[in-house]
């Protein structure tokens, strides 16, 4: 308070101690840190000059960024973080939370309706079938990740087994389809019995269950050695498993085609009717004008159906003894055993079920892309799917769906950051900052919603009244 008497003019707006000097000092320090970090990271750019690598300097960009950071920090210190600000009342939920609660019963049906109607909206919005290609492609991508998220959610969210190698099952599914569909002996076998084009037209529908079964089998194979592991150790082993599968795919050239991958995989058909411009194609048979978009829209509905099957199965399983056992296993393994649960079977079933859905998604990936290579199954994908599950709120279906849409959609949005050129000048490539902004978003969510977007959990059984109980008051099960 000595400061107050010495410099009465320094006091800001009546009550409390002066905050401006402190805030200025803090902003200055922040500026120094930002300068130190951004100087080398942003200030230098590697450029190719006459075929040789050279350095370009971008002091202006650094100055603008540091300026934004200093100003932002100063404003935050003077407003939101100000010690003079009255503390927020803790009691009761915020209007936002109440608003979300009020619309939540309608949210799921609305989301579903939007997902079903999306291709039509996209066509209407963009004004034509082929113009909507980008949006529908994006929809397919998001739904693939929704499905992968829901599949991994069984392993991580419900059974509490941290799996960093989920991409392995995605790869197993994709290669199952790619190898079976392009296999000459299988083709010859069916050609002899059911006609030349049978296998090319029906491969996807036959391979889909096979891909799921194979991936599930691999889930079990992975499950056995890791039965005794939990937490960090399990994560490391599953991470290694994901890498092993990828390395095998690269190095077993005779079987998988190695790094070159497998190309010209048969496309999806409308239950045996190919999407071609010919006489017996989909368009001709249904009296439509041929458009390559038919196949894409059909694929959209296939992945939507697969994702919904995943969600529905998970919801049903949660109410069955096996699903409840998964959740109990996540909470306390020792208690599970003393209640007569065979934890071996519980773990293996969780791994196998989660892997199976990963396999379905992989099969879909192969048929959509028409080409598979080990490049598509790197650790990044596992990390992305895991991030979706964690951000969505472990164990929450709707949270995972929203997180997948936000992450994948958001990543795409960040491709279109043209407006940043207005600020930083024409030499600025906004797409390079995608991952930075993405990282910011992740940090923000982890600060404000540390248990994910949807942290409450619906009980699987209740008396008379259904109540979702917030997760924030309960500590996690023992890892």
């Amino acid at each position, binding site marked *: 308070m000595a400061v107050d008497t010495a410099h009465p003019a320094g006091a800001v707006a009546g009550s409390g101690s002066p905050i401006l000097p402190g805030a200025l000092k803090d902003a200055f320090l922040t500026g120094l840190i930002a300068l130190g970090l951004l100087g080398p990271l942003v200030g230098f750019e590697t450029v190719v000059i006459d075929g040789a690598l050279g350095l370009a300097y971008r002091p202006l960009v650094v100055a603008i960024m540091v300026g934004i950071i200093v100003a932002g920090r100063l404003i935050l210190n003077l407003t939101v973080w100000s010690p003079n600000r009255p503390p927020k009342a803790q009691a009761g939920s915020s209007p936002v939370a109440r608003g979300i609660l009020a619309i939540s019963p309608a949210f799921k049906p609305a989301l579903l309706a939007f997902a079903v109607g999306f291709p039509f909206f996209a066509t209407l919005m963009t004004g034509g079938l082929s113009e909507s290609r980008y949006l529908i492609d994006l929809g397919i991508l998001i739904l693939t990740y929704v499905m992968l998220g829901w599949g991994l959610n069984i392993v991580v969210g419900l059974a509490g087994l941290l799996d960093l190698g989920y991409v392995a099952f995605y790869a197993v599914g994709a290669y199952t389809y790619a190898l079976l569909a392009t296999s000459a002996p299988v083709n010859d076998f069916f050609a002899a019995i059911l006609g030349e084009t049978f296998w090319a037209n029906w491969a996807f529908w036959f391979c889909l269950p096979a891909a799921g079964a194979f991936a599930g089998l691999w889930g079990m194979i992975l499950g056995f050695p890791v039965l005794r592991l939990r937490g960090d150790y399990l994560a490391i082993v599953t991470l290694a498993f994901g890498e092993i599968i990828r390395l095998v795919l690269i190095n077993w050239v005779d079987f998988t085609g190695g790094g070159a991958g497998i190309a010209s995989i048969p496309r999806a058909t409308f239950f045996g009717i190919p999407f071609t411009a010919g006489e017996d194609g989909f368009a001709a048979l249904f009296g439509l004008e041929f458009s390559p978009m038919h196949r894409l829209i059909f694929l959209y509905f296939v992945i939507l159906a697969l994702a919904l099957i995943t969600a529905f199965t998970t919801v049903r399983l949660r109410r069955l003894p096996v699903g409840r056992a998964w959740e109990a296993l996540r909470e306390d393994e020792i208690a599970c055993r003393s209640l007569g649960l065979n934890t071996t079977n519980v773990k293996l079933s969780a791994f196998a079920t989660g892997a199976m859905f990963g396999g379905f998604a992989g099969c879909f990936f192969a048929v959509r892309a028409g080409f598979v290579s080990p490049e598509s199954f790197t650790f990044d994908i596992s990390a992305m799917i895991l991030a979706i599950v964690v951000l969505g709120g472990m164990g929450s279906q709707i949270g995972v769906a929203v997180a997948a849409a936000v992450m994948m959609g958001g990543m795409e949005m960040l491709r279109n950051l043209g407006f940043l050129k207005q600020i930083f000048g024409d030499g600025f490539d906004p797409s390079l900052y995608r991952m930075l902004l993405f990282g910011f978003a992740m940090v923000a969510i982890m600060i404000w919603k540390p248990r994910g977007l949807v942290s409450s959990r619906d009980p699987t059984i209740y008396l008379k009244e259904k109540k979702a*109980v917030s997760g924030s008051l309960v500590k996690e099960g023992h890892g």
Partner: protein
Amino acid sequence: MSAAVTSSEPMLAVRGVKTFYGNIMALKGVDVDVHRGEIVTLIGSNGAGKSTLMMTIFGQPRAREGQILYEGRDITRMPTHEIAHLKIAQSPEGRRIFPRMTVFENLQMGASIDNFEHFDSDLERVFTLFPRLKERISQRGGTLSGGEQQMLAIGRALMSRPRLLMLDEPSLGLAPLIVKQIFDAIRELNRTEGLTVFLVEQNAFHALKLAHRGYVLVNGSVTMSGEGRELLERPEVRAAYLEGGRH
């Protein structure tokens, strides 16, 4: 003690059991008998091996030597989950309820051994015994107080319709009034239904008052055994476990 010691063959017989943690012998040849309809307590200080014996009976860790017989069957090498299917229920040390599942779901997990055949009547029975659980039915296990969690752990064990109920330190960290409630409930179960109870306790005074018979475990060996009230009168027991510790 009318119900006690009716059959000649004990329901649970622990014979010369030795259990090791690595090279350290935690149980040095323990013999314990539990007869049908009895409440038997095992008392001892910290680190005496009480919980180890409890867990050894459940197969984790396994006894390296000796035998554990349940209703005449050798269960020494049986997997834990199969032992649970023999209608031995356990309320483990530290309660180990499922914190993120509701009270109802926790109880449901207990009933899975019984295949939910008597779910409604068993639920009613647990709620009569612990009315507090009924009030908390849709609350998450982790939000319950310690006493309520203990009630839930016992209730969950009862949902499997056990013939032998094993309780590991149900009084741990609870207020005296709650301890009394829980011990009254155990006495009630034994008197009305003839449920056999094996109780591991540090709270020697309450445990010995409740039990028909008791064992004193010191450093992995049983040093004394006898009727509960008789043990309570022994000067050695009083000196070691009761004086100054009566609550």
